[in-house]
């Protein structure tokens, strides 16, 4: 199993290998980061704020004199976990609804599409603001907000794909065989949407990372002392003028994570066929 995965990884183009390496690296950080962190995430360990690189603090100290490396190692878990979970939730929901619309006919599609129009037209950050104000900030709520925000985008793409695929001969054959709608949606249509949906997933992932950092700007984010990568950038923004590592490190982390995910997905074999 691992050997075959390794073999498949070897066939990836260079960009895919780079992407895979980055993704694996961040997955490892998400999984083991908190264990590797040299200091507790909330500990005030440096006397000065925005310290530079030193032996004690590899990535310097943050705006309160906490260890940036430790915070980064712990923060990655939130970003990777939240963004991946939200992107999956959004994709799963959007795709499920799109399939429902594709096989359900106009009576199902019309209300669904209006509903999606509604979701998409309410600015996501303001929507988040309202929801957090109404329900209080919590990880599940953040997850839900990010997912809800990106369901309509996924729905649009998935629906376009599904409606096209629903016209394919093999779907007609399945209908003529007497197959139910559920079977058609799941077995006949869905597998052929996977590749374009994966590419979409990659972009959604980026957007969600971005949304989370945007939310942290508005003060809606992970509960302190923890912070996702976006919040780390945000809370240290006043160090930007002095080029503090505290802000550069999480920004680079976000960039490598999102670029890595997309390089990997772009390089997966079989892409482009579904278009």
């Amino acid at each position, binding site marked *: 199993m691992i050997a075959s995965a390794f073999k498949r990884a070897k066939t990836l183009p260079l*960009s895919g290998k780079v992407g895979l390496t980055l993704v694996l690296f961040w997955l490892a950080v998400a999984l083991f980061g908190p264990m590797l962190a040299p200091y507790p995430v909330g500990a005030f360990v440096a006397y000065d704020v925005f310290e530079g690189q030193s032996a004690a603090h590899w990535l310097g100290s943050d705006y309160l004199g906490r260890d940036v490396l430790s915070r980064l190692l712990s923060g990655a878990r939130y970003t990777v976990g939240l963004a991946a979970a939200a992107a999956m939730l959004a994709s799963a929901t959007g795709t499920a609804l799109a399939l429902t619309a594709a096989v359900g006919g106009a009576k199902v599609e*019309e209300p669904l599409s*209006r*509903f999606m*129009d*509604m979701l*998409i*037209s*309410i*600015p*996501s*950050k*303001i929507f988040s*603001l*309202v*929801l957090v*104000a*109404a*329900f209080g900030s919590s990880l599940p709520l953040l997850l839900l907000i990010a997912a809800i925000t990106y369901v309509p*985008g996924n729905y*649009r793409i998935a629906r376009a794909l599904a409606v096209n695929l629903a016209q394919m001969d093999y779907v007609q054959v399945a209908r003529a065989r007497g197959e139910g709608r559920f079977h058609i949606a799941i077995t006949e249509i869905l597998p052929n949407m996977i590749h374009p949906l994966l590419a979409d997933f990659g*972009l959604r992932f*980026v*957007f969600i*990372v*971005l949304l989370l*950092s*945007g939310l942290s*700007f*508005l003060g809606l984010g992970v509960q302190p002392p923890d912070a996702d990568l*976006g919040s780390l*950038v*945000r809370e240290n*923004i006043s160090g*930007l*003028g002095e080029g503090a590592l505290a*802000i550069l490190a999480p*920004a680079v982390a*976000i*960039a490598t*994570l*999102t*670029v890595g995910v*997309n*390089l990997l997905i*772009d390089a997966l074999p079989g892409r*482009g066929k579904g*278009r």
Partner: protein
Amino acid sequence: MAGASSQSGMKAALSLIGKRFASSLLTLLLVSVTIFVIAQLLPGDAAQEALGQSATAEQVAALRHEMGLDRPAYVRYASWLTGMVSGDPGQSMVANMPVAGVIAERLPNSLLLAALTALVAVPVALTIGIGSAMNRGGRIDRALNIATLSMVAVPEFLVATIAVLIFSVKLRWLPSIALASEEMGWGDYLRGVAMPILTLSVVVIAQMARMTRAAVIDQMDRPYVEMAVLKGVAPVQVVLKHIMPNAIAPIVNAMALSLSYLLGGAVIVETIFNYPGLASLMVNAVTSRDMPLLQACAMIFCAAYLLLMLIADVTAILANPRLRAQ
């Protein structure tokens, strides 16, 4: 375009506009109900927020009565809706002036910023998208791919802050805040919004460029493209004259989607550059629980989105002779 077909194009577009109008009304209604319901869940109301911590109970009651907040929720919604239908979005509870007036002050700002950003971002996105499509798989394509991905990945506030540090604090070329006032000329205005435009562009360009690339590549393997090449058409002309007319529909659609972000999604940019736009107005409306204002903003964002989608669809019709004829 022949006269007859452009006429049939208009007809098809008009009938689409007609159909969309009805479904748009439905969407708007849905949005207003949703906003209203969610806003009911928010703690506190406009009266409490306006009076603040120090308010006495009588004061709150008096203000509630004045604002009409002592009526049941459905009555308030119904009265808002009847007002809206007759073209009156009501009175802002907090600013003590008609919502229409408050909006009228901000809407042009938002529209202008969005339009200018589109003006910058669309050509850049098209160039990047087409450029990478033409070099599909090549070095330029890969470099642009990583560049656009990285662009999406950088938080807006970071882009904005870096831009401010460089262009206004360090170089002092551009003002760090967008000051919209009537006495300034266009030159000052453009200087003021240069960085907001830059920041917003970074956000939307990447997405639009990627969609453009996909749409162009989608057409590149079509036989008519090979035919054009075999006719001796130069590569750039192949893209501009042959591929673009066919790729324009998905591209415009993606652009419309991205551009709809420029109105409501500009919260952070409006905040950082202190630009008096609609998004921050809506945030204001949320925090002050100013329902009529909140609703009005939501309606505008929703209508803008629907309008952009309609424009995209009409473009698709006008670009496609087959749809035009229908």
